[in-house]
């Protein structure tokens, strides 16, 4: 019974994550959904910390919660009208969508249960920041540089699409 605390923490994080993501996809107000998504991403950072990935948990909080969600909240505030609170937010195919999502989930779960059952962590989690840094500037240096080009292209594209038509010569 010495493993009760990790199991309880994992169960709590799972229930929080599933509940919050259900709010994300079903909330009538998309702003409320974005707040729930922010909390869900924080819970995912908690799961990363639970898995011993400290650097990834910190960058999840920094990039997702502190960066992407702030932009998303700004765009939501810039593009919503008061009428949106009263419109329905799902389309007519939601039954088939739910069926398809359930089918994909069940297929993945059955596959995972049959293949990866009963694999436990054998080592104690260690801090990984130094080894990730060595990996990014060693074996992964080519994708590292490529992704910086992608970021530059995304930046230029965002500025271009953000311009007014008359400024875009």
């Amino acid at each position, binding site marked *: 019974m010495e493993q009760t605390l990790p199991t309880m923490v994992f169960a709590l994080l799972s229930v929080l994550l599933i509940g919050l993501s259900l709010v994300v996809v079903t909330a009538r107000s998309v702003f409320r959904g974005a707040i729930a998504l922010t909390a869900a991403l924080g819970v995912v950072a908690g799961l990363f910390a639970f898995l011993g990935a400290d650097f990834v948990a910190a960058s999840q909080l920094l990039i997702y919660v502190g960066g992407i969600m702030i932009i998303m909240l700004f765009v939501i505030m810039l593009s919503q009208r008061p009428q949106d609170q009263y419109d329905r937010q799902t389309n007519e195919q939601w039954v088939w969508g739910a069926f398809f999502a359930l089918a994909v989930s069940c297929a993945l779960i059955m596959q995972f249960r049959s293949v990866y059952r009963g694999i436990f962590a054998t080592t104690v989690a260690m801090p990984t920041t130094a080894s990730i840094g060595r990996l990014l500037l060693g074996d992964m240096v080519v994708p590292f540089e490529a992704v910086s080009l992608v970021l530059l292209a*995304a930046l230029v594209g965002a500025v271009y699409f953000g311009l007014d038509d008359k400024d875009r010569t």
Partner: protein
Amino acid sequence: MTVSLHHFLMLSAILFGIGIFGALTRRNVLGILMSIELMFNAATINLVAFNRFLHPEQVWGQGLVIFVMTLAAAEAVVGLSLVLAIYRNIKSVYTEKMNILHG
């Protein structure tokens, strides 16, 4: 009962399913973008869990998660600026109104 690999995989499968449901059924483009972020996170949970349980002495999975996050940020930035540009033209964020480009 201890937490093992397939618990994490099942959690991420459920999260992925919820993300698919949102992406298929939301009318709002911003809701679809948020559902896609949910699916990205399901994939990153998988990567970190495989890294922790199968190859604990290496960090390739966690390094890959950094790239997934970066690309998700790039995707969100471009997607959101496209949403704003479309909203300026047609004053709506609903997908059924975005039918200027008839096939």
